[in-house]
């Protein structure tokens, strides 16, 4: 019986082990840089759990009246921002996507613009705009809109670019004008995708909206931050729980609607 080595696959398992080593090495290095103490992290687990369960829970019902208005503001801000961003993005996306762009220069310019907007988080935008617009819901809406704009332009562009260009050619070759091609060929194909991305963006905006209050953007974020700073953890917990429920509800609705249209 031959006992010489018989490998199981073509590449050497060297790469797998190298990969594992790189991951461990990176982990250790980044751990040092970010002051991460792994032992400490494990040691404090019981402490953190008791902190959460004893100090935060049960949430204080008395806090509810103070939460209602900021929470509603949070919701309204997210809705307005998402829809506004969606409307603007549709136009820009059409100018940017390969099948429908009037000229390649649009594509490059808009893509760069969207990239710029998207890589700065909504929270950062809030901080940037507060000096100009002051604290409050207005700056929050603007910041959220700008943030969503960046993402939606990219998502919408992708959706438009995924359509079957064969159908477009068919309409164009039978004599349709730009607008007719748009209406009959492009729109039906990408509407489900556009709506889907808009709903996804709404989910993201709700999450962002809940925290921009912490830097002056209005909404329930400020309440959460201040109650925690004031050690009123059970009040904060009430707000957090309501926020979590809002996020879950929006996620659920979004999922259901997207299932229906896809």
């Amino acid at each position, binding site marked *: 019986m031959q006992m010489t080595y018989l490998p199981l696959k073509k590449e050497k398992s060297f790469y797998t082990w190298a990969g594992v080593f790189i991951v461990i090495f990176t982990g250790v290095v*980044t751990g040092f840089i970010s002051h991460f103490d792994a032992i400490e992290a494990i040691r404090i687990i019981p402490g953190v759990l008791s902190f959460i369960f004893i100090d935060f829970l049960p949430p204080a019902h008395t806090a509810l009246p103070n939460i209602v208005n900021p929470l509603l503001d949070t919701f309204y801000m997210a809705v307005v921002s998402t829809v506004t961003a969606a409307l603007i993005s549709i136009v820009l996306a059409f100018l940017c996507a390969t099948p429908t762009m009037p000229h390649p220069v649009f594509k490059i310019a808009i893509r760069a613009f969207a990239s710029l907007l998207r890589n700065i988080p909504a929270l950062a935008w809030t901080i940037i705009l507060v000096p100009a617009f002051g604290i409050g819901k207005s700056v929050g809406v603007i910041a959220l809109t700008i943030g969503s704009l960046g993402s939606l332009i990219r998502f919408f562009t992708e959706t438009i670019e995924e359509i079957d260009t064969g159908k477009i050619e068919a309409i164009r070759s039978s004599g349709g004008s730009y607008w007719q091609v748009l209406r*009959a060929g492009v729109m039906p194909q990408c509407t489900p995708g556009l709506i889907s991305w808009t709903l996804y963006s709404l989910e993201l905006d709700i999450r962002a909206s809940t925290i921009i209050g912490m830097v002056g953007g209005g909404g329930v974020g400020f309440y959460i931050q201040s109650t925690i700073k004031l050690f009123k953890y059970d009040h904060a917990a009430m707000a957090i729980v309501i926020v979590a429920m809002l996020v879950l509800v929006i996620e659920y609705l979004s999922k259901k609607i997207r299932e229906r249209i896809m």
Partner: protein
Amino acid sequence: MSMDMKVSLVPKKQKYFYILFFLSMVLLYAFSLFQLKLSYGSGFESVRKAFGFILRMFHFNFTDWQDILYAALESLSGAVLATIISAILAFLISFLAATNVSAKGLPIFIKGLCASIRAVPTLVWALIFVAYIGLGPFAGVLGLCFHSFAYLVKAFSQSIEEVNAGSLEAMKATGASWLQTMARGVVPTIKTSIISWTALRFEINIAQSSILGLVGAGGIGHELSLYMRMFDFEKAGFVLMVILFMSFSVEMIFNKLKINVDINKF
């Protein structure tokens, strides 16, 4: 083909759904806009000011560039570390959360727990950890890990659930144990989607970790908040550029590596 033929492009029922949807969105939008009671008066003045400030930001002042770069490195490391830790933990737990390979009842429980964790924004988790262990990037990384973990459990378990049931059946039929089937049947099949999801989450984590500092969790967000509070737009501009650069390069690198994930399945 005449354009005014009344042929419905979409089944009737779906058409009603679309109409209903659009109508309610319009109503919701109008209602929300009204409820917000935004002040439109000072609008133009503010926009003018904003452009002025943003213009100032382009005149970078990078005198404190060492501190800023170190802070950026802190944020970056935090994101990397949080991604690694949460990915490993999520990978292990995801097997228990996948309906096709886990015991009855367990997936629902774990998925529910993770959904709740995810529903709390990362920044709030960071705040909670800051309240417990104090300011600094350590709290931020922990908060990021928490949220990241919950997100990846959902993503990974979804990938596991997409594995062909027949292949798993076949391994079971050979007498392989559950662990062996997972390791030699499931893992090789989901390897690429695990990597994709982790990469996606890493992008998100980079963005999140930049802003953790804004609430005291260290890193470059802290620097940004510092300078903005002093209305030092020139320095803040440099910080923003660094943030942009980090986020942008990650996006570019991943685009080059062509790691794709379909968000609509999430």
